[in-house]
Every structure is written in structure tokens, then in C-alpha cells.
């Protein structure tokens, strides 16, 4: 009889997430993620600029459909992500612990992540009302301004908070109808890959969220310079100058989210949604 100790271990391959699929990096490169004791936890894909390019193509393809979905549906889908995450809490806690977190802080982070998704799910059909306006003009026009998704948002996720930092930046971008390409935390990438699996099981259309793992040093330039990216979100001071210079080429929106304490409630706000929106103003002639 086979005893439990004789069972062959099944170890998970952590891959990247592009266009609703889980490929390995096209570059074939990996880096070893180690735990506190120096033991290898997993081999993580070292994503390349070509992976990023492919992600942007996928995000562009998904944008028309996603931005046209109703606010109500986007809210439902965000809520669905939260439901899926709720059911997989243990896995995320275990992964955070594996990456050096205490069990207590890991539990806190996972719960805060679920709550954050629900927070933004609730805003899906409400942010438009608080940021839109009817403008007084001195001509016979009805003049009003509404928000529209900016397009593709490139997100350099915060390093320290493997899960909540990721969720807190993806959720406001996609609830507003954007699609995004995310570089996961370099030091805590495990949760990002598992979160991609959650997204995959949550009716999020392929290409709406694309998640890469790899080195920030190598990919920041690409995130900031790609002409088909409409906004870039970053969280650390170090790369600010470089990002702003490169982003100027096609006038990307540059959003700095440095020094946020991501688990705190103060880190969530509808202004994070409006960060990646464009204001469209319409002049509608009316009879005198």
C-alpha cells in the first residue's frame, strides 16, 4: 500500500499571465525565489520586454470590449474576483508566509485585499456621478463632462506588499474600464501569479489584466516608453525620474503612488479610479 509519505510531491510552476493564458516567459529565463532560510521556494519567470510587448497587444485587443461593458457588469466581475479570493484565503496566507510574512500579518493582508476588491466593486457605478459635471457656459449649449477610460495602464506593483499592493492598483484601473499590464513585486511574486489564477476564474475577459514577473530594473524603461501604453503607475521613488522622462514621449498619464500604506483604509479612494480616466466634455446645442 502506498503511504502518504511515499507520494510524489506536486510542485507548482509559477508562470506569467498574458491574454487569459499562462505561458512561460518567451525568453526562457528564470530566477530563483528564496525563503528567509535561503532555500529555493520556486523558479520565477524573468519576464522580458517581448513578454511586455505581447501583453500590451493583448491589453489593446481587450480594451474595446472591456471599456464598453456596463459599469454594473464590471462591478459584478470585481465582486466575483473577491468571492474567488475569499475561497482561496489559505493558499494566499501560506504563500505570504513562505515569502517571509508572519501568519498574522499575512491573514490581515489577505482579508484587506478581499475587502479592497469589494470596495472598488461598489464604486463601479458611482464614481462617474461624483466626477462628472454639468458646466455653466454662456452660450446656448448644454455642456457636460464625463469620464472615459484612458486605455492601457502599465502598473509597476509595489515591492513590499505582494498581494494588497497588487490588488489595490489593479482594481481601480479595471473598474474604470481600463485594461492593464502589471509587473508583480520582484521580491514577493508568488501571490501575483496565484492572483492571476483567481482572475482567470472570475469572468475577467482574457487580456484585461496581464501579469508579468521579473526584474524592475530591466522592465521599467519598457513600461514607461511603450507608445501604446496610456498611463503608467509606479510605487517607488527610485525610478520616478526615469519614468517621467520616458512617459513624456506620448504624454502618458504618470501616476505616482509612493509611500502608501496599502493595508490601511486610507489607501483606497475613488480618486485612484479617476487617476486613470480622461475627461470628455461635450457641447450640445440647445434651442434659444
Amino acid at each position: 500500500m502506498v503511504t502518504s509519505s511515499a507520494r510524489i510531491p506536486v510542485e507548482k510552476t509559477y508562470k506569467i499571465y498574458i491574454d487569459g493564458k499562462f505561458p512561460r516567459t518567451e525568453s526562457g529565463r528564470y530566477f530563483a525565489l528564496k525563503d528567509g532560510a535561503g532555500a529555493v521556494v520556486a523558479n520565477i519567470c524573468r519576464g522580458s520586454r517581448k513578454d511586455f510587448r505581447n501583453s500590451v497587444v493583448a491589453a489593446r485587443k481587450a480594451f474595446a470590449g472591456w471599456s464598453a461593458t456596463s459599469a454594473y457588469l464590471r462591478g459584478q466581475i470585481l465582486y466575483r474576483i473577491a468571492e474567488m479570493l475569499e475561497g482561496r484565503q489559505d493558499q494566499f496566507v501560506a504563500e505570504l508566509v513562505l515569502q517571509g510574512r508572519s501568519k498574522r500579518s499575512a491573514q490581515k493582508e489577505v482579508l484587506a485585499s478581499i475587502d479592497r476588491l469589494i470596495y472598488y466593486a461598489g464604486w463601479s457605478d458611482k464614481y462617474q456621478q461624483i466626477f462628472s459635471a454639468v458646466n455653466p457656459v454662456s452660450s446656448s449649449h448644454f455642456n457636460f463632462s464625463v469620464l472615459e477610460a484612458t486605455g492601457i495602464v502599465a502598473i509597476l506593483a509595489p515591492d513590499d506588499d505582494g498581494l494588497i499592493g497588487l490588488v489595490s492598483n489593479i482594481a481601480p484601473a479595471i473598474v474604470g474600464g481600463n485594461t492593464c499590464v502589471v509587473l508583480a513585486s520582484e521580491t514577493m511574486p508568488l501571490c501575483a501569479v496565484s492572483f492571476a489564477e483567481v482572475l482567470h476564474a472570475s469572468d475577467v475577459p482574457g487580456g484585461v489584466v496581464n501579469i508579468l514577473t521579473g526584474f524592475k530594473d530591466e522592465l521599467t524603461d519598457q513600461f514607461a516608453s511603450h507608445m501604446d501604453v496610456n498611463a503608467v503607475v509606479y510605487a517607488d521613488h527610485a525610478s520616478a525620474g526615469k519614468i517621467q522622462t520616458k512617459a513624456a514621449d506620448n504624454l502618458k498619464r504618470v501616476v505616482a503612488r509612493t509611500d502608501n500604506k496599502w493595508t490601511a483604509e486610507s489607501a483606497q479612494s475613488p480618486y485612484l479610479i479617476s487617476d486613470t480616466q480622461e475627461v470628455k466634455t461635450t457641447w450640445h446645442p440647445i434651442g434659444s
Partner: protein
Amino acid sequence: MTLTVVPDSSLLPDLSKVSQVDEVGVNERAARFQTRSIKKESKIEALHMILSMIDLTTLEGQDTSGKVSQLCQKAIHLHNTLPNLPHVAAVCVYPTMVGVAKKALGDHKINVASVATAFPSGMAPRHIKLEETRLAVEEGADEIDMVISRGAFLQGEYGLVFDEIAAVKEACGEAHLKVILETGELGTLDRVRRASVLAMHAGADFIKTSTGKIQPAATLPVTLVMLQAIRDYFYDTGRMVGMKPAGGISTAKLAVHYLVMLRETLGNAWMTPEWYRFGASSLANDVLMQLQKQATGVYQSADYFSKD
């Protein structure tokens, strides 16, 4: 009525003797072309070559003279900020738009290609197909893209298909004739090979995979089979026949793979717009985006390139 030369069906080869295609082998070989590593300089060279081989195409029921003129402007001004770009080989339109295209292109050395013979189905009586061909040529078409009668071909009426191609060739006069096999409707690679042989013997200047209206359109394996047919026909008769894959080639990368295949199957002699074309509508912009990427080092967006 114009006098037509009755084509000599005795020139039709015995198609049962056409060599069989090893489908597994062809697929494997075609896949290999996609693994070649292309270095930067070769890539830029290849991208220029691809641009020069494009038949910029619009074949929609909704085409207007405005749309065709716009396409011609695109053909003339591919992307003015990039220096030393070649121009595309031709603009490909419906017969009723040939006059518009001819006028819009003016003195530029860009050919006008017209589809004819009841494109895309080919379901019309022969005299109408011939009349359409003559009309397109009279309007100034330099090249005619005809479709074969797939129904007749699949019924085994090879003689009929052969005669029809020969008659259209005769109606073309000076214009070059491209024969569309519509491989997506032929079903097997064996039939593709047979249809290629038939078309070449009937006088085709080019053989072309697809109309673009049927899926699958051009694929690497189908194109490889046709290239091999061209090669063997050249060895038999000494006559060069051109090749035009069309439909579904929308990225520069894939187009480079087609060039690799051309180079390794037919060699350098065929690597000019005179003997090889891409039928495409969105390929040009992707190639331009890649060239701009090579020039600036930054990945590009379709937002900054004129629509085609």
C-alpha cells in the same frame, strides 16, 4: 464580338500524375521556418522588402471612391517620417474602382491590380467573367487577380478550369494574371498542388492562395506546397511563376517567416516584387510600426500611423 483564341486543352497535364504531398512533412518543414533567428540588419532589410511586395488591398462591398483614393494616398505616403521607404507594389481593388485608383496614383510607379471573374465566388458564366476582365484592363488595370471555379475543380472538370484560366489570360492582354486557387475551399494539400500545376500550365503569371473571404486563408504549409509546385514547374519548363499569399498575414513577424520560406524554397531570384507579393490590408502598418521601433527603440502604437 472580339475574336477569342480557343485554348488548347491538350496542354493540360495529366493531374493524376502530379506528385502527392506529404502533409506531415510539409507541416513540419513550414514550422521550421518560424524558428530562424533574424538579426537586426537582416530584419530591417526584410521589412523593407516586405513593404515593396505588398498589394495594398481593399475588397469590400462598402468600398467607395473616397475609400479607394485614401488607400492610394496611403500607398504613396506610407509613413513620411521614415526615410528611404520603398513604395508598395500595387493597390488591389474591384474592377469598378480601377479608374479611381489609376487616377489617384497618377504618375507614381505603383500598379493597379483588379480582381475579376466574379470575385470572390467565381460563380458567373464565362462570357461575363471575360467581359469583366477586359473591362478592368481597359480601365487601366496592370494586373488581374482571377478566381478559379472551385466547384468545377472539385468535380474533376479540370479541362473546364484550365480553359477558363487560359481564356482569361488571353483577355488580359498585356496585364499580368494572378490566379487565386482559394485553397481554403480545396480541402487538401494534394488538391492545392494539383490546382497550382493546372493554373501554371494554363498560363498564370502568378498563383495566389486566397481571396481573403474564406477561412483558412494563406497559411505557411499551403504556401509551401505552392512554392514547391512553382519550383518543379520551373525545372520542367524553365518558366518562372510568381507567388502571392493573401489573407491572414497581418503581422510583420509572420511576413518575415514567409520570406524565409521563399528564400529557402525558390531562392533569391524570386525575392523581388516582380515574383512575390503579399495580399494584405493591415500588414503595411505593422511593418511600419516595426521599422519605427527599429529606428527609435520604442514599441509603437497604431494611434500614430495613418489608417489603411
